[in-house]
C-alpha cells in the first residue's frame, strides 16, 4: 500500500472510532437553560420529577409537523400525570421556527436549539427525533426518524403510570 493511501486509511479509522455515539436510554438527559418563544425560561433541571418528552423539530421537516397535533394531544391527556413536552427547533433561524407557532394550538414550550445544544444531545443529525425522559432525569427512550405514534403513546403511558 502506498503511503498516502495508508495515511488516508489511518485517518479514516481514527475518525470512525472517534465518533461519539448519540444518547441512549439510561443516560442522564443533558442540562440546558434557554428562553422559549414566549420569553419564559425553560430549565431542564426544573423538570426533575416530571416525565419529559423532548421533540426536536424544524419548520422544513414535514414529518415533524405531522407529529405536532399528536404531541399536543399527549400533553393534554397526560399533563395531570406529570408529562411535560418541550419542543426544540433545529431551524437555522428563529424567524423560520417562530412562523410555525401560529399553525397549531401549542400547549407546551417551543424554543430554538443550535449546534451547541445539538452536540450536547449527542448530535441531532436528522429529524424528527424525540426523547422520553423519566422522573429521575434519565433517558427512557430515543426515537429517530419517522416514529409510529403508538410507540410514543405506549412509552408515555408506561412512564406516567
Amino acid at each position: 500500500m502506498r503511503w498516502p493511501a495508508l495515511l488516508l486509511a489511518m485517518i479514516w479509522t481514527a475518525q470512525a472510532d472517534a465518533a461519539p455515539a448519540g444518547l441512549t436510554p439510561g443516560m442522564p438527559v443533558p442540562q440546558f437553560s434557554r428562553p422559549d418563544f414566549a420569553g419564559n425560561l425553560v430549565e431542564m433541571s426544573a423538570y426533575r420529577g416530571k416525565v419529559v418528552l423532548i421533540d426536536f423539530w424544524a419548520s422544513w421537516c414535514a414529518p415533524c409537523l405531522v407529529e405536532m397535533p399528536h404531541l399536543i394531544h399527549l400533553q393534554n391527556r397526560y399533563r395531570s400525570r406529570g408529562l411535560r413536552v418541550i419542543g426544540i427547533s433545529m431551524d437555522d433561524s428563529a424567524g423560520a421556527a417562530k412562523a410555525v407557532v401560529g399553525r397549531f394550538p401549542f400547549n407546551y414550550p417551543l424554543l430554538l436549539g443550535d449546534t451547541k445544544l445539538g452536540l450536547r444531545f449527542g448530535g441531532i443529525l436528522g429529524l424528527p427525533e424525540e426523547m422520553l425522559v423519566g422522573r429521575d432525569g434519565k433517558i427512557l427512550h430515543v426515537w429517530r426518524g419517522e416514529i409510529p405514534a403508538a410507540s410514543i403513546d405506549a412509552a408515555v403511558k408506561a412512564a406516567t403510570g
Partner: protein
Amino acid sequence: MRARRQVLSFVCAAPFLKPFAAHAVGSDAVPGAALMKPAELADLLKGGGPQPMILQVGFERLYAQAHIPGALYAGPGNQDDGLAKLKSQVGSFPHDRAIVIYCGCCPWTHCPNIGAAYTALHDAGFTNLKVLYIADNFGADWVDKGYPVTRGG
C-alpha cells in the same frame, strides 16, 4: 379508536403541514442513475483515489454538528440564497468535475433540499453529478454506519 384519533389528527393538521420552502422540488426529481449509496462514497473516500467535490445542500445546524470530511457547506437547496451559494461553490469548475451532493436532514421522500439542488446543478450543465441516497437521515445512514465524520465545525 386510537387509529381513528390519529387519522383525525392528521386530517385536522393537513392544511398546516406544508413546510416552509421557497423551492418545492421533491427528491423524486433525482433520477435513479444519479444516486450513489453511502457505502459507495465511503469506499471512494477510503480508496485514496481522485476525490469528488462533496457539497452538503441541507441546513447549517446539521452541517455544523457533523458532516462528511472535506464536504463544503452549500446552503439549503430549498432557499434562493442556498441555491445561489451552491452555484457559486461550483462556478469555477469544469462541467465534467465529479460532484456529490447530499442532505440527510430527514427521510429521503420528505427532503426539501436535494431535488432542487440536483436540478440546479443539472440544469447548469454538470454532467458528472451524483446524489448521495440517504434513506432516513445523516445520523442513521452515515454516522451510525461508522463512516468518517467531521464533528462540530
